[in-house]
């Protein structure tokens, strides 16, 4: 298979397959979680706060008082790489065109220079959090294969995308194919790995906020 054939497959059947498996996996995982159900809380709520779960969806994105100084690398590194990746994925013009081709709609992209800076920041932040995971006693102790896999699967598309954009290899076609394949690998593995937190955290934060809110605590 030539690089062009690989790229063609990755852009066509490969992408469709990866998106399908990702969607199927997410639905399966959501079913696994939600089908377990939960008992109705018979203790009367202190105050009726229907918005507490939704509030926590947002509030948990900010460090609670005193925590930023205790774990600056975790918070700052986390913000930079998540925001950097989001900018690269959703505001790089070729990505938006791909989304437009798939969904029929798109939006305005950001200048390449801006996306480039965001990507570099994300790459550096990911390397920093990796160093943190390797050296911090707690993170190193907690980390298992799944954590290293999640880091690798996230870093690959970022690194290959950056390399392709800057033509860092002679065979651009192959580099682009590898970039798309790395994204597809991430999509397929996402539902069954630590990467599922991108979906699961919405449930987890909502439950947390709702449980605490019933007691009159803003969590």
């Amino acid at each position, binding site marked *: 298979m030539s690089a062009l054939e690989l790229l063609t497959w990755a852009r066509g059947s490969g992408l469709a397959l990866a998106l399908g498996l990702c969607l199927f996996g997410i639905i399966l995982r959501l079913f696994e979680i939600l089908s377990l159900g939960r008992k109705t809380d018979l203790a009367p709520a202190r105050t009726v706060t229907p918005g507490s779960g939704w509030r926590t969806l947002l509030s948990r994105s900010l460090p609670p008082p005193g925590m930023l100084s205790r774990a600056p690398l975790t918070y700052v590194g986390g913000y930079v790489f998540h925001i950097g990746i989001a900018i690269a994925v959703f505001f790089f013009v070729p990505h938006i065109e791909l989304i437009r081709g798939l969904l029929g709609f798109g939006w305005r992209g950001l200048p390449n220079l801006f996306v480039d800076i965001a990507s570099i920041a994300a790459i550096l932040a990911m390397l920093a959090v990796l160093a943190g995971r390797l050296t911090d006693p707690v993170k190193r102790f*907690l980390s298992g294969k799944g954590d290293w896999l999640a880091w690798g699967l996230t870093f690959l598309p970022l690194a290959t995308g950056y390399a392709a954009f800057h033509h860092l290899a002679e065979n651009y076609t192959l580099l682009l194919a590898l970039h798309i394949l790395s994204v597809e690998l991430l999509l397929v593995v996402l539902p069954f790995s630590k990467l599922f937190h991108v979906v699961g955290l919405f449930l987890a934060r909502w439950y947390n906020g709702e449980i605490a809110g019933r007691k009159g605590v803003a969590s």
Partner: protein
Amino acid sequence: MSASYERGINAFMEVIDAPVASFFSSCVHCGLCAESCLFYTETGDPQYAPIHKLEPLRRTWQQEYTLLGRLAKLAGLAKPVTDEELAAWSPLVYDSCSMCGRCSMVCPVGNDITMMIRKMREGMAAAGHAPEGLVTATARSITSGSPAGVKWVTVQAQIKRMQAQFGIEIPVNKEGADYLVLMSSWEILNYPEYLGAVGRIFAKAGATWTLADDAYEATNSGIQIGASDLARQLVGRIVAAAERLKVKCVISPECGHAYTAIRWEGPNLMGRAFGFEVKHILEVLDDLRRAGRLKLKGSIDKPLTYHDPCQISRRGGVHEQPRTLLNQIAPQFREMNDGGTMNWCCGGGGGVSANERAEALRTIAFKRKKAQIEELGVDTVVTACANCRVVIEEALEHYHMDIEMLGLTELVAEHLDEEGI
């Protein structure tokens, strides 16, 4: 039924629900829960990272409730949870977690780790891996009505003492009273002044109240050990007394886990909503204040601070009331750093103080509270949980700190406006 490994695993499977599954599905091992846990911050030992304490429960979830986990189990690729592993986890689940809930406030993906520890203890107790101290306390609760073995005759003696000391009437088994007052073992044994304070405040406020001779103890070891069937029995005694006496409200004493047991877990343990309200004593005092029935005068002319009991503040939502009350009588009231719902635990909640095995670790963990108190430069600490009070008093003694501990209800009683109302 006797404890066994099988019962433990079955209990794990029973307690896993959608929130637990969503929590385990979202953890990315960021380690922030450790930074919020005093058992880690004061020891630096990574095994005390809160999420690690749940590992056997997590693997049970993965192997029983996820497709990939089940396939791995069928193929013999999954590492089973063993009885030896549960035994090894017992100190992590019981000694190094006071269920203070700080990690649940900090987790960036929103995991309520404390709620999962509470659930995990159900399996640990069923498997026979609860610590001896808690097992004994729970057994005593069932046989004698109190984890410390306090009998009604002891309460009667304290009633007589308080009546004589304060010249008040302490009603017993009075039908139709507004409030049924409960106490914790510590209050009966160490701080009977609480009872005297309640009597004085209610007499002044014109509230009717009663004790019940068959339901005076609010401490619930069943909650701490993780045995819902026993917790249900203990709560059931209070519910039966409240219904027999037709009271409007049951008052949880200055005890954190007692409040959680009767207020938040009680109806769920009993499987029905109660026909009466359940309030913490601080909520009642603030209600009376707002109704103009509790007037205070005078002030404490010294700097003091308030230690938020975790189950009352962070896990119970009673964090404004103590401040409102203190601000009326303590002009030099100073907030601790991280006060309120982010306050640090005393280290002895969740059954840790009843667990002799945890004593050395608890003393180390107290260094966090010690630092909080020292940086304020106060000589007086007020709290609203008798267990916190005992734990802090013991630790202050250990660290040779000359700090006075006070109960907030007693403090309020000492500042009643005798001419008011």
